[in-house]
């Protein structure tokens, strides 16, 4: 299983592999069909942001595994001119997708559990998003059993 995947983003067509990899990772991490769709949508929005505003960048996808939860980490990076008003870009009072519709970066933020945007004018932008899934007791029990069996 690949724990990290990188997808170069330079055109609308690159959204397709980014979404496919994100969905596949979400399914491997045990997310429901609905949540996998929301993760794919959030990836589409940040990738689209790169294509529209910068032209070139990359999406990095990583599996996260903790004791009581697991997740999908999405990093969207570009070396563009950066974002002058980060708060406005995140909150979505206005955005490039229309007059306050709430798609784009604010839309992606609302679909994920964690969202950070790091940008300085002239040094590019990195968006970090995480979607978490709690592991229930039964799942933890099965995992402990699997580990014991492997150890034996």
């Amino acid at each position, binding site marked *: 299983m690949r724990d990290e995947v990188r997808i170069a983003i330079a055109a609308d067509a690159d*959204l397709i592999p980014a979404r496919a990899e994100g969905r596949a990772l979400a399914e491997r991490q045990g997310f429901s069909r609905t949540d996998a*769709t929301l993760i794919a949508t959030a990836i589409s929005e940040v990738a689209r942001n790169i294509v529209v505003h910068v032209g070139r960048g990359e999406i990095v996808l990583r599996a996260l595994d903790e004791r009581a939860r697991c997740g999908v980490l999405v990093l969207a990076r570009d070396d563009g001119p950066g974002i002058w008003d980060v708060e406005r870009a995140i909150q979505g009072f206005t955005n490039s997708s229309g007059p306050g519709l709430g798609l784009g970066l604010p*839309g992606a933020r609302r679909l994920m559990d964690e969202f950070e945007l790091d940008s300085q004018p002239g040094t590019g932008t990195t968006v970090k998003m995480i979607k978490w899934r709690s592991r229930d007791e039964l799942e933890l029990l099965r995992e402990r059993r699997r580990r014991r069996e492997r150890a034996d």
Partner: protein
Amino acid sequence: MNGPTEFGTAYASALTAYLRDGDERARTTAYELGREAATIGLGVMDVAEAHHAAVAAALGDGASATEVATAAGDIFLETLSAFEMLARGLAEARDVAERERRHAAILRQLSNFLADASLAASAEGSTHEILHLVAEQARELIGGACCVANVGADHDAVAARAASFAPDEAPLGARLALADLSRLEELMRSSGAVARLDPREWLDPAAVGSHDGAKAVRSWVAVALARLDGRSIGFIHAFDRRPRAFTSADGEVLLQLAQMGSAALERAELYARQAADG
């Protein structure tokens, strides 16, 4: 695309393509369709109508009911994901409106509390009580792990500081209650208004760094308490471990709180002076 009819045709094509290829390309088309539909003002019911027609057409073409049901579910979810973003945006806007309403109510109530605090028996007791109220209400209004309100030694009353912190943030509250905040405060004396920054660049890591596995403090917003003539007499600080935890709207709320707190402190001084004069 400019209406429900064209949307219905495009939706049916996306479902047909997905039934044929079952790949991400058709799913991406469905996501794009939903996005466009939301942008031009179509609603969830338009999507439902198109979905129903596309499923009926697919079944009429002889595809198996199981295959159509699974594929149609995937395409439907993709199309609705844009509407999900909009729905969450609306819910967030409602929350913001509710929070603003609550802020206004808290500030009205605080105005009465501060008036009472100004009348405390001694100037020192009054200052402490006002700072305590301001720190408590700052955290109530904008959240955050810890809020600190202070007045400096150049104030006519003695230097004083009060901190309010979340129940599980007592160690951080204790560190910040003693932290040296003067570097930023000096800067704010000249620049005024609201400062929002990353405290790790300004404060001793012993105060804001990670301790006992807890994350470092990443957000800081501060406003000055100022006399009517503009001289600053103290500050309100709010801290949180989340990055960019405070918005410009939070800064505005703190400014409002600072104006009320400053007026109460000046009033308390006046009462104390009158009492001393007999």
